[in-house]
């Protein structure tokens, strides 16, 4: 057995309750009961983990300390010294971010016949998109409808989603799936073309479309392949470090940094789309994260300095099932599709404690309650806590071979550590997963700044205070397409004045005036995971370059 001895007794309990649990379903909670569990156990409700912003359009709104630190930091650029008249690239549409949202925006903008430049921090496609395993929602079956999808979306989001955005998401969804089909995305289908769909947490219909458990990767690699076929210009390892405005206050491009040469480049653009993703790598409240290395909230920092408004930045999604054992892959994602396929969540005694298909915020809070207040978590040799996710139930319920066919990535991942998920359960604990809020947009992906558009996780409003599984892959494509369209059309009519960094200067002044300017520099670009000893040895010198 791959699990250490201290966990054996609990494993036996899990096996012993299987026959009984096959017939049992945990009842779902009422809205009132749900609210009570969230308020007592969800990390969003820990008041001391937040503080109000000192400056900017959201002054006074509380956000996690980790984000506030970046929003109260200085720019990498000295606006008094930097020469914005030396223009290195001139384009119609500049897209910041090379994940699913950025690439969908690039394809759509290019269809309009404008010049497109996509700049991305790491390799093109390296993003949270590629890590999204479970699926993409769309109400395209007979017993389903966009209205039903809408209801699930706003119920999951705490009834505060922005209605126009919610409507855009559910209405465009079927057309997005057709777009992907025509691009050659390999969906899980019956031989006659019918989509094989399953439930996700909080869905009332089985509307999760998947590509085995590589859904995001399959979508990403097809979009990227298509963009390469269309010859779209891409700059890799070139994150944006500041937005540029023109004299009239409209967005006019960005300053990029070449990560290898550490040179700064000026891009003048008639339209700019932020598609830089979320903030998982800020490790809010010390949580591990499922997110990509580059998820450092760069787009939020840039847009906020330029005067864009943020929404719901006080809410973070913790994915209920992050890996709690083995230690090497701590915090990595266990896709919700596992629960969609029938795996149950169990405490140390092998008993269910929450319906596994409740919304993510509630399931996370219930796991935290089980491990803390009720003290019925499983303890690992390094002192991590977790609950069981009983993966063998999938083949028991759906027939042998289902797990291998539906979850090949996960089978492979655990096999590396000697765990066979078809015969042994796995240990999980919530992990920081998604930025529910972001830069406020309307249904055309426009922000409050003319010429600036946002798509994907960097934007906020569509998911309210909690996103449902399968609505993120959908979000990046719906609003990536919409942003590409709006930005391209606007670019044809835009005239730019002289470029300026005055907004950065003013932001620095405002921070200094309120005494909130800290010693940090933002955007972060990349997290620093070197050892404490290594950090100490680097101190005192000036970084090379």
């Amino acid at each position: 057995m791959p699990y250490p001895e201290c966990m054996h007794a609990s494993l036996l309990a899990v096996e012993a309750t299987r026959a009984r649990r096959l017939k049992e379903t945990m009842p779902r909670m009422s809205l009132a009961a749900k609210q009570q569990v969230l308020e007592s156990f969800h990390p969003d409700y820990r008041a001391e983990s937040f503080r109000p912003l000192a400056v900017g359009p959201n002054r006074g709104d509380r956000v996690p300390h980790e984000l506030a630190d970046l929003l109260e930091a200085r720019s990498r650029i000295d606006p008094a010294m930097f020469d914005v008249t030396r223009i290195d690239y001139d384009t119609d549409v500049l897209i910041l971010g090379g994940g699913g949202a950025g690439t969908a925006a690039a394809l759509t903008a290019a269809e309009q016949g404008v010049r497109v430049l996509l700049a991305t921090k790491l390799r093109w496609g390296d993003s949270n998109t590629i890590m999204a395993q479970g699926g993409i929602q769309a109400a395209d079956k007979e017993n389903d409808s966009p209205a039903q999808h809408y209801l699930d979306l706003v119920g999951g989001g705490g009834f505060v989603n922005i209605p126009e955005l919610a409507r855009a998401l559910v209405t465009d969804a079927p057309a997005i799936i057709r777009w992907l089909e025509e691009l050659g995305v390999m969906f899980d289908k019956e031989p006659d073309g019918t989509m094989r769909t399953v439930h996700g947490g909080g869905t009332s219909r089985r509307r999760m479309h998947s590509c085995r458990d590589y859904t995001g990767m399959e979508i990403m690699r097809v979009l990227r392949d298509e963009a390469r076929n269309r010859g779209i210009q891409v700059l890799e390892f070139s994150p944006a470090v500041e937005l540029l405005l023109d004299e009239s206050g409209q967005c006019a491009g960005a300053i990029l940094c070449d990560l290898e040469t550490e040179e700064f480049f000026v891009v003048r653009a008639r339209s700019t789309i932020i598609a830089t993703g979320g903030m998982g790598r800020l490790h809010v409240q010390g949580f591990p994260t499922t997110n990509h290395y580059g998820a450092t909230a760069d787009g939020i920092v840039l847009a906020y300095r330029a005067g864009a408004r943020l929404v719901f930045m006080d809410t973070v999604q913790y994915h209920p099932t992050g890996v709690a054992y083995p230690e090497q892959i701590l915090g990595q994602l266990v896709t919700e599709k596992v629960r969609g396929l029938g795996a149950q969540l169990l405490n140390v005694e092998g008993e269910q404690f929450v319906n596994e298909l409740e919304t993510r915020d509630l399931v996370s809070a219930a796991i935290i309650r089980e491990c803390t207040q009720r003290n019925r978590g499983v303890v690992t040799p390094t002192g991590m806590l977790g609950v069981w996710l009983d993966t063998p139930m999938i083949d028991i319920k759906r027939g042998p071979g289902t797990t291998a066919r539906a979850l090949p990535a996960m089978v492979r991942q655990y096999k590396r550590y000697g765990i066979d998920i078809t015969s042994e359960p796995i240990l999980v604990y919530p992990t920081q997963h998604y930025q529910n809020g972001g830069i406020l947009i309307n249904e055309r992906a426009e922000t409050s700044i003319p010429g600036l558009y946002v798509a994907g996780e960097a934007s906020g409003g569509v998911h309210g205070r909690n996103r449902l599984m399968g609505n993120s892959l959908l979000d990046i494509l719906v609003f990536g397409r919409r942003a590409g369209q709006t930005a391209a059309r606007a670019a044809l009519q835009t005239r730019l004045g002289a470029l300026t960094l005055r907004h950065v200067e003013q932001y620095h002044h405002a921070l200094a005036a309120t005494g909130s300017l800290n010693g940090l520099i933002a955007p972060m670009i990349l997290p620093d995971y070197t050892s404490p000893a290594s950090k100490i040895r680097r101190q005192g010198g000036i970084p090379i370059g």
Partner: protein
Amino acid sequence: METLVEVLEKQSELNEAVQPRLISISIAGKRYAVPEGLTILKALEYAGYRLVRGVGCRGGFCGACATVYRVADDYRLKIGLACQTMIEENMYLTQIPFYPAQKATYDLRALRPAGDVFIRFYPEILRCLQCNTCRKVCPQDLDVMRYIAAAQRGEVDRVADLSFDCLQCGLCASRCPAEIAHYHVAQLGRRLYGRYRQPLAAHLSRRLAEITEGQFDDELSRLQRMSRQELESLYAQREIEPEETTPAKKDED
């Protein structure tokens, strides 16, 4: 009751209390002592590397951290994803942050999923020596050589199925004596399969027609205008479609 932060703090204290054994590894020719039990990626970072290239999702999905290594007293080269492979004593490490490979450009709408489609865009697949090195270096354990053979014969379905789990890390291309970029060949095969070999979903076509006709417009407008109380009560009354428990049909091979 302990708060979450307290629980996490206690855990990190516990973690600090357990002093891990240090083992010796070599990174690009230099020696470092790092705690055992780390992945290659975390060992590089522990040693002080602030990674820009050769790191990506850190979860085994993006293929950015393809790594070549060997261990002492063994001439054989081994491979792995740095984020998924554990370090061993006396490991000699290097990463392959970028490896050039040519991708053909094509208009998918103008192609047919059969015949010489692969040879047309990637004639070099005919140079395959059947050395099987591509398969041996694949960190995903894919049978790369077999899908290249299928591509030579124009078997789109086989190429698509055998290559589905490909992360496009490029290790196959880095070692191929025939200079084939296998992962680009596979991408063409999967797109042909998805576009032409799988029928479009008929239920999706019907739904698209209904949306175009505006069938859901009134209901959506009503939902958009509803008060929170009305939405809550509607949400509480949702009927939840039962979970499918009958075994799904087996995939066609």
